[in-house]
């Protein structure tokens, strides 16, 4: 309603501005420890709540974020400051106006307001709030029950239930997006509308989270299988439609999965989580390719994109087939109050830090924070400020890199108030870390004090347990790196950050920073979140100051590369001329070239591609010409190129040329089984050939033997702990010095980035080209179809038993530790289950860590309920 706009503005800017400032300050102070705050009780008692709450109630009707935020501030203050039971009740009613039922439940569970709020209200107000409650709920089809939702959730639910088109939804982090998407998906299965869905998530960590989420929603009678392994057993292929499945994959895994069958038109629904990651270097293109590939198989595919606080969610719908309905659900409303707090040292007093809330253009003085020790370095600043301000737990510290994260966690763990815990779950995690990584890996000792760190290449079982214990509050301080922002649904009470960088050295842009900051405030667990920015005036830390709030702009990686078409054309030209030096390769240009080439090979022109309508025809013409020239030199069939997104077909052709010119014994081109004595040497040769002909993937060249060694050990099913132990012995046997933390991190990096990421991508492509060559020259007798290299490498398996354990849903760490105790290497899933049932009582005696036993029990339980 346009006419009310001036009233909203007046209320916020003038009417209740001063009171709201004070409420903001007093409310924020409640959540911070070791703070000397400059106000007293009498000021809190003097707040004119009736006036404020009326203003809040009016503002809750506005459609603007700024107004809604003030309403939320008033509701939160009324509940948190506990002036009187009437005020708290009224605050709860205001939450109801804001469709924020979860915060009311939180107030009740914390004992701030007594239960049965609605019975205490006067008749007319009760009718009004009950009506709102019905308004802010949706009908779950399969059960006929109503589910309480916020405004975003409601809009999403209505849009997604509407028709079969494409939908793109965007909302801030704590809006309950994932919860609702999963709820909807399960409902669709129950109602019988959907029988096969794919859920794409960018990281393995997120995949486990989604699997857990689905597992908790599904019940025995649903008959829906959740799968995250990109393989199909023969039986499944035979009756593809017999079993209803939700496949949860990364973009790489969906391609491996699709490669295992001829054509798959059975997927009805595709959900793309963290969809803004379509803009990631190289992996974004692979995601785009996956979406296009699924949509080609089933033109009626329903696609749902989900992204956090993005500027332009609608852009994702551009490639929807003609005539397909498109809907955007775009919400920017906060569900939890977020305080952006600047922390600056008081002059001459390194242990005293002045805190200020920054709210739009105004600053609100909060008071002085007292640290335990003088912070002499950047790491100490972060550690001591976090330790002081975040005693209540749920405190996240953002570190620029894994080594820094370890160092900060160690500093926090030494604060006297942070004592060694006797908690069983923390001790079990510590035990798992010692057995699963190394006895002296620092995580083991800090975890015992409720402090942890978290980064990308850590084994997923450990990382998930860290996240779980942080959520439950047992880990009070968590030092993280950008991995956490990249795709783990983890929110916190307080974030402490100074000069955040993304990747190596680039200062975070505003939208990245706010993607991180958005995690402060756990909806339903807390009323507010704090983002503490240390040294805001330091231009080394914050080159453009602490960023003002910005939403994430989605740009497809393929688009941004194609937008700089001069560079792309030049790159293709160099490819045409041939003989590129290693330093002329560029992974962004390479991936997009591969994508375009694969599109051209399939359709004979880019003009048929899904993205063609968005591009300038003249530009496509030039690209077509260059791609035509390249394609005329490519014998590798388009199906092979299509199977390996991100791998350039022209590079594959160079590999094929090599095979064709090879005059030695053809068997020498085949990798040897990992148990064979020549496996290692052959892997070195294969990696060197990939570097030389396809793409310099295993660099630097001198480290190829190390890459090959780790890949072989990984394939043999060695545990991470074992691989680390062997590297240590190697260093010691050769009298080389090493730093344990670096060696551990380096090994994790090799396993994750080489063995699980690059090797599967390139070795699988190598094998496909080799197979094609053997067929061409009439030597199909040389083709052994025993092992799917993509799967074997990503999961680190070369035996049936180990694969079956993973298929059961166990993490690799658990699978490997169990496998070390299993003699038989040919067990099916059933065989594994029988082995486990028989030996479960002996797990303690085998030294199997408790967390692994728990995982095994959980998996067996869900197996028995879903079959």
């Amino acid at each position, binding site marked *: 309603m346009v006419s009310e706009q001036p009233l909203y503005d007046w209320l916020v800017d003038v009417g209740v501005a001063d009171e709201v400032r004070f409420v903001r300050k007093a409310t924020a102070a409640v959540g911070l420890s070791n703070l000397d705050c400059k106000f007293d009780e009498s000021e809190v008692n003097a707040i004119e709540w009736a006036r404020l709450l009326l203003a809040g109630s009016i503002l809750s009707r506005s459609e603007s974020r700024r107004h809604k935020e003030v309403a939320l501030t008033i509701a939160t203050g009324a509940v948190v400051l506990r002036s009187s039971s009437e005020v708290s009740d009224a605050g709860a009613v205001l939450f109801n106006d804001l469709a924020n039922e979860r915060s009311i439940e939180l107030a009740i569970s914390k004992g701030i307001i007594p239960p049965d709020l609605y019975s205490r209200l006067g008749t007319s107000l009760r009718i009004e709030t009950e009506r709102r409650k019905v308004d802010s709920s949706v009908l779950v089809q399969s059960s006929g029950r109503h589910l309480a939702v916020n405004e975003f959730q409601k809009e999403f639910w209505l849009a997604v239930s509407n028709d079969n088109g494409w939908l793109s939804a965007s909302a801030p982090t704590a809006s309950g997006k994932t919860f609702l998407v999963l709820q909807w998906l399960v409902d669709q299965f129950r109602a019988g509308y959907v029988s096969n869905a794919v859920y794409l998530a960018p990281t393995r960590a997120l995949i486990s989270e989604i699997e857990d989420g689905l597992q908790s929603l599904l019940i025995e009678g649903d008959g829906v299988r959740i799968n995250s392994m990109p393989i199909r057993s023969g039986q499944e292929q035979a009756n593809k439609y017999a079993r209803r499945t939700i496949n949860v994959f990364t973009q790489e895994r969906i391609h491996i999965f699709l490669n295992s069958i001829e054509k798959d038109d059975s997927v009805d629904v595709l959900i793309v989580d963290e969809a803004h990651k379509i803009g990631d270097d190289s992996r974004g293109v692979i995601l785009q390719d996956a979406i296009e590939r699924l949509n080609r198989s089933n033109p009626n595919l329903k696609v749902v994109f989900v992204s956090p606080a993005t500027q332009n969610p609608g852009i994702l719908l551009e490639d929807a087939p003609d005539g397909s309905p498109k809907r955007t659900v775009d919400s920017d409303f906060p569900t939890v109050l977020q305080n952006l707090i600047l922390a600056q040292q008081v002059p001459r007093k390194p242990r005293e830090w002045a805190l200020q809330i920054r709210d739009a253009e105004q600053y609100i003085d909060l008071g002085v924070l007292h640290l335990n020790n003088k912070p002499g370095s950047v790491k100490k600043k972060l550690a001591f400020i976090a330790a002081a301000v975040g005693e209540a737990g749920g405190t996240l510290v953002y570190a620029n890199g894994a080594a820094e994260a370890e160092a900060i966690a160690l500093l926090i763990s030494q604060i006297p108030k942070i004592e060694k815990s006797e908690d069983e779950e923390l001790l079990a995690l510590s035990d798992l870390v010692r057995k699963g990584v190394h006895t002296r890996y620092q995580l083991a000792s800090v975890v015992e004090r409720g402090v942890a760190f978290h980064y990308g290449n850590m084994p997923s079982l450990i990382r998930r347990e860290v996240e779980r214990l942080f959520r439950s509050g047992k880990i009070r301080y968590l030092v993280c790196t950008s991995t956490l922002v990249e795709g783990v649904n983890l929110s916190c009470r307080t974030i402490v950050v100074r000069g955040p960088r993304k990747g190596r050295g680039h200062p975070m842009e505003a939208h990245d920073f706010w993607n991180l900051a958005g995690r402060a405030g756990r909806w339903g667990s807390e009323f507010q979140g704090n983002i503490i920015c240390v040294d805001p005036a330091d231009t080394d830390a914050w080159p453009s100051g602490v960023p003002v709030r910005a939403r994430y702009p989605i740009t497809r990686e393929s688009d941004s590369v194609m937008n700089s078409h001069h560079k792309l054309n030049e790159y293709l030209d160099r490819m045409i001329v041939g003989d590129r030096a290693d330093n002329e390769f560029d992974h962004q240009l390479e991936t997009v070239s591969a994508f375009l080439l694969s599109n051209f090979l399939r359709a004979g022109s880019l003009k048929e591609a899904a993205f063609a309508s968005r591009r300038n025809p003249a530009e496509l013409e030039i690209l077509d010409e260059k791609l035509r020239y390249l394609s005329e030199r490519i014998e590798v069939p388009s199906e092979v190129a299509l199977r390996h997104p991100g791998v350039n077909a022209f590079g594959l052709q160079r590999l094929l040329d090599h095979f064709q010119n090879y005059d*030695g*014994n053809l*068997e*020498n081109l085949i990798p040897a089984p990992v148990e064979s*004595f*020549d496996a*290692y*040497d052959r*892997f070195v*040769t294969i990696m060197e050939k990939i570097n030389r002909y396809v793409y310099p993937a295993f660099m630097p060249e001198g480290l190829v033997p190390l890459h090959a060694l780790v890949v072989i050990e990984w394939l043999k099913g060695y545990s991470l702990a074992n691989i680390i132990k062997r590297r240590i012995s190697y260093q010691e046997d050769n009298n080389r010095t090493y730093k344990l933390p670096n060696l551990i991190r380096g090994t994790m990096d090799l396993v994750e980035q080489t063995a699980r990421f690059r090797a599967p991508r390139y070795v699988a492509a190598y094998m496909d080209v080799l197979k094609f060559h053997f067929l061409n020259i009439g030597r199909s007798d040389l083709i052994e179809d025993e092992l799917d290299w993509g799967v074997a490498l990503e999961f680190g398996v070369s035996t049936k038993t180990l694969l079956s354990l993973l298929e059961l849903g166990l993490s690799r760490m658990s699978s490997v530790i169990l496998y070390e105790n299993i003699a038989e290497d040919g067990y099916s899933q059933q065989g594994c289950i029988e082995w486990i049932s028989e030996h479960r009582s002996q797990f303690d005696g085998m030294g199997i860590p408790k967390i692994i036993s728990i995982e095994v029990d959980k998996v067996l339980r869900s197996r028995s309920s879903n079959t």
Partner: protein
Amino acid sequence: MPAIPVTIGGKIFEKKGDALEFFQVMLAKYYPGDTVSDDDSVWLTGLIARHPEAAEKIGNGIRNFSVRRADYNTKCFWVNRVDGTSEKFSYKSCV
């Protein structure tokens, strides 16, 4: 001093250097991990018989030969025995 001819696997090399070059070229054409072809194996069988520790190297019998990686990014020949064991040997020691 006149060159001394060497006979390896029935083939006569006019001088030691020729034999060394012959096996160096042979080694160079293989990638690490390759199994040596049957033709080349005939020469290598003759070669290894000349090794100062031939009996130990051959053990209970030769299955085939391979080329594998050695230190400092070099390659060398390995003899694979019937019993499944393997050992490297230097062609230079044999000539």
